[in-house]
């Protein structure tokens, strides 16, 4: 690694809900940021630069909202940067914020990703106000059907993911959906939205924000010495590819393959299932859990759905996925990626509470966007050299 090490020393998120009418747009961002600063034992004046990420501005009807959010996020007299890479944006926001530190330019950087979807109508915005949007579920359904056909996955795999993630969400105080009575039967009885995806296999629409404080190596070591465990970034990667062209494989996009290979190489991971303790993957529709396990070469062909079927990806399984409840339980779109990245960091800090994976030292996070063509991933660990010895 030729660049400066980077540590995560503060994480905050909002209580995600369908509509957070108790806070303004800026209030939502600030709620997450204040929690992250408290966690980092810092105040606003400790922060050198702020990076904001969110999905399309049309979702709230505020153009370039980082301008308006400057006041609430204490960014006056500081650099304020704004990222937008579709659904992967939350992940990319974390990575760009980390680059501010890894490049040696800044020492303490605050990343905030958010979406206040109740301010507008996402479906309307996705069609840019012209209507006729098929929505994300409609766009991804053919890819999921192709995955099922290609791998021979049984029909119940999707519902099993939906049940597992919602049960995990019951252990996450910040999760939006709390479906205590969820079961395979209730999922399968819910209305078919975009075959093969049923209503209870789909993500909600949420208001929420996530904030992360990044520091340089000295800051990470100081936090550790103070009894506040940091998460260290072992590697991060992004990839993009065009939406559609002959020969593109939307089930196993080359960008997904390359992004994972890049981040694993940086982190020194040659055996993902053996070396990674748990993962937060961007699964807005149930079938994407086995699809990403295979597309990122965590599992071999057809092994993704078999891991789900065996319960490997459950909280007490051999490779837990979406311990937080994932995007299926909370989906403030612009924040959803950073929530994955932050929840992975919480795990290796040992601070995930009821959904903590025992002894998690290395965690993977991933987000994707647009037509499954934008990818961002990072690997975080409890130390800079978790595989030593």
């Amino acid at each position, binding site marked *: 690694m030729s660049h400066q090490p980077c540590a995560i020393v503060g994480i905050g998120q909002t209580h995600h809900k369908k509509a957070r009418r108790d806070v303004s747009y800026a209030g939502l961002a600030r709620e997450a940021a204040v929690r992250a600063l408290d966690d980092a034992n810092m105040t606003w004046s400790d922060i050198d630069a702020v990076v904001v990420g969110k999905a399309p501005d049309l979702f709230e009807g505020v153009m*370039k909202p980082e301008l*308006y959010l400057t006041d609430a996020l204490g960014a006056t007299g500081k650099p304020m940067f704004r990222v937008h890479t579709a659904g992967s944006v939350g992940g990319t926001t974390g990575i760009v914020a980390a680059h501010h530190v890894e490049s040696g330019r800044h020492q303490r950087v605050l990343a905030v990703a958010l979406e206040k979807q109740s301010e507008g109508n996402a479906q309307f915005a996705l069609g840019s106000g012209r209507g006729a949007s098929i929505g994300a579920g409609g766009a991804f359904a053919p890819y999921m059907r192709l995955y099922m056909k290609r791998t021979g996955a049984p029909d119940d795999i999707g519902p099993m993911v939906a049940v597992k993630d919602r049960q995990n969400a019951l252990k996450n105080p910040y999760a939006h959906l709390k479906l205590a009575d969820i079961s395979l039967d209730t999922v399968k009885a819910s209305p078919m939205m975009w075959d093969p995806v049923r209503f209870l296999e789909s993500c909600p629409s949420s208001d929420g924000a996530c904030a992360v404080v990044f520091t340089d190596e000295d800051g990470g070591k100081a936090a550790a010495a103070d009894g506040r465990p940091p998460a260290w970034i072992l590697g991060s990667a992004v990839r993009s590819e065009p939406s559609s062209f002959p020969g593109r494989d939307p089930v196993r996009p080359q960008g997904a393959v390359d992004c994972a290979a890049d981040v694993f190489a940086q982190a020194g991971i040659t055996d993902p299932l053996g070396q990674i303790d748990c993962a937060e993957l961007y699964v807005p529709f149930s079938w994407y859990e086995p699809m990403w396990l295979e597309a990122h070469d965590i599992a071999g062909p057809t092994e993704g759905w078999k891991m789900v079927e065996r319960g490997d990806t459950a909280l007490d399984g051999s490779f837990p996925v979406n311990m937080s409840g994932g995007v299926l339980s909370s989906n403030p779109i612009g924040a959803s990626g950073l929530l994955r990245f932050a929840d992975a960091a919480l795990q290796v800090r040992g601070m995930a509470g009821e959904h903590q994976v025992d002894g998690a030292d290395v965690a993977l996070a991933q987000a994707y966007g647009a037509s499954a063509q934008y990818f961002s991933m990072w690997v975080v660990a409890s130390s800079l050299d978790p595989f030593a010895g």
Partner: protein
Amino acid sequence: MPDIDPIALIGWSVSPMVRSTDKTEAQMLLEVITGAVENAGITRREVDFTCAGSCDYVAGQAFSFVQNIDAIGAWPPKRDSHVEMDGAWAMYEAWLRLQLGDIDVAVAMGSGRSSTADPALIYPMEMDPYYLAPLGTDAASFAALQARALIDAGKVTERQMAEVAARARRDATGNPNAQVSGDFDVDTLLAEDYVRSPLRRHDLPPITDGACAVVIARADKARELCDNPVWISGFAHYSELHYPGMRDLTASPSTTLAAKAAGLEEAPVEVAELQSAFTHEEPLLVEALGLAPDVPVNPSGGPLAANPIMATGLVRIAEAATEIRDRGRQRTLAHSTSGPCLQQNLVCVLEGGSK
């Protein structure tokens, strides 16, 4: 803090600037990216990282940048990012990315088709959604408030503003990409009615469709690919409060902070390309940057000659780089801005010679 790794501009391309193009944003980008990589003597395949700057509201479409990826040539898939900011900030992200040291070449771009939108309709939406956006106050109206504050403070006069416009349009006659150019008489300009008092038509930028792309590279690669790289010697940006009513509109402290962080004061610059889209912003920025009175400002004509929003700032960097590579300058300055009344400002200092 470690020294900045030397990173240089090695190629760039600016599109024609027009009131309304019949090209898509992806087509405009296709041409400038091709132009920039050819200018650098490379192909898209040799580009390790790309970062685009564009705006959904200017395009009138959510996720508008997703279509633009076709122009990048992201196959095999590329390390790529996008900022909802001017291309100058896209270049800032690319500059940070190259400093990680594992890759060598990046393309940054900015693009905007303002012809598709009504600025008076969309720009109120970049204001605080609860207290300011409902006023319907557009960018020109906020600019007028700042111009009035400067006039009241004795820092500029309407005649000086008209002189800035006349000089910019005259300078733009030498710029084949300019949209507004020619000789204009200051008294004639001052006889026009106000658009937003105290701003007349000549105090405002044109509405422009355009794009710009630049290629930057780490030092060794830059020297290998290019005989005369233009070095980025300083690069910084800062923000101010959003509420214009809570700021001193006769100053631009974030510009001063950015200039200091970019090392502007370490040596004089010979040319400044400023994103002063309104005439009164030029003297304000010149003061905030501490520029000597004899430093030529916007010899390209600047944003008053062509204002491709989301690319305007990156065009300033390309013009400032051209001053070094093609016109024998040694040290130049480029500036970009975003938000009401110059809320956010970026300074990029460029140098010729070897590093």
